[in-house]
């Protein structure tokens, strides 16, 4: 799954808009497999953290009410070329992943 996540940081005056699109099923646990009728287990990102140069700038707790392949966007007041923006997350089954990019 790694590599299919997207993280974009677009300079905007002195700051930057940070946008991400993460690959995750965000299963509520209420759906059934259309083929077998078996319930599909709940599987969702629980905790997410955004850092700039190893300092947390935003953190989140999510439930299964966040849409599949979560999208999140916010604005950084100040950004400098070379700043490293890192997003990491953990789901309810213990899977972890992260993505990072540098401000151009």
């Amino acid at each position, binding site marked *: 799954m790694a590599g299919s996540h997207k993280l974009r940081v677009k300079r905007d005056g002195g700051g930057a808009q940070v946008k991400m699109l993460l690959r995750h099923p965000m299963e509520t646990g209420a759906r059934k497999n259309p083929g077998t009728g078996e319930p599909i287990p709940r599987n969702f990102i629980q905790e997410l953290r955004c850092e700039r140069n190893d*300092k947390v*700038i*935003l953190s989140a707790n*999510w439930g*299964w009410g966040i849409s599949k392949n979560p999208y999140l966007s916010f604005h950084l007041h100040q950004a400098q070329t070379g700043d490293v923006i890192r997003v990491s997350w953990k789901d309810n089954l213990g899977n972890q992943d992260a993505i990072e990019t540098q401000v151009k």
Partner: protein
Amino acid sequence: MDRRIFLKASLASAQIAVLAASGLLAPRTLLAQWPSDAFHAETLDGAMSRLLGTVDVEASDKIGIQTPDPAENGAVVPVDVRSDIPDTDAIYLFGAKNPTPALAAFELTPEIAPDISCRVKLGATGDLLAVIRANGRFYSARRAVEVVAGGCGA
């Protein structure tokens, strides 16, 4: 003081100081452990009281909620929440008609604008609530969202 104990004690304090300086111990940037009871709560009041720790929430017109109207697909409803209340440091989202209303909790830092965009699931036509925290107090706004196709199975 025994020298060995003293050294141990100062090492521990030094480590705590490093943690504090790196932001690891700063309460504003460290969320509580994932609040299971809040996300499992089946009523809006239950979800709010468990996620916020209070039901004392004041309605405010300084919070803007943007959504498409109507929302064609309840499984993917784009939401933008913006707060014009000074010192906003958290944003919470709830879907009033969802089987479990708590959607998300965001802890902000002064480095970012109190303006978050994401996409949520809404099970049926009803209110989307945004609650923000500023200076330890809670303020809310709600927006009625018409959902054409419910999204809770998705």
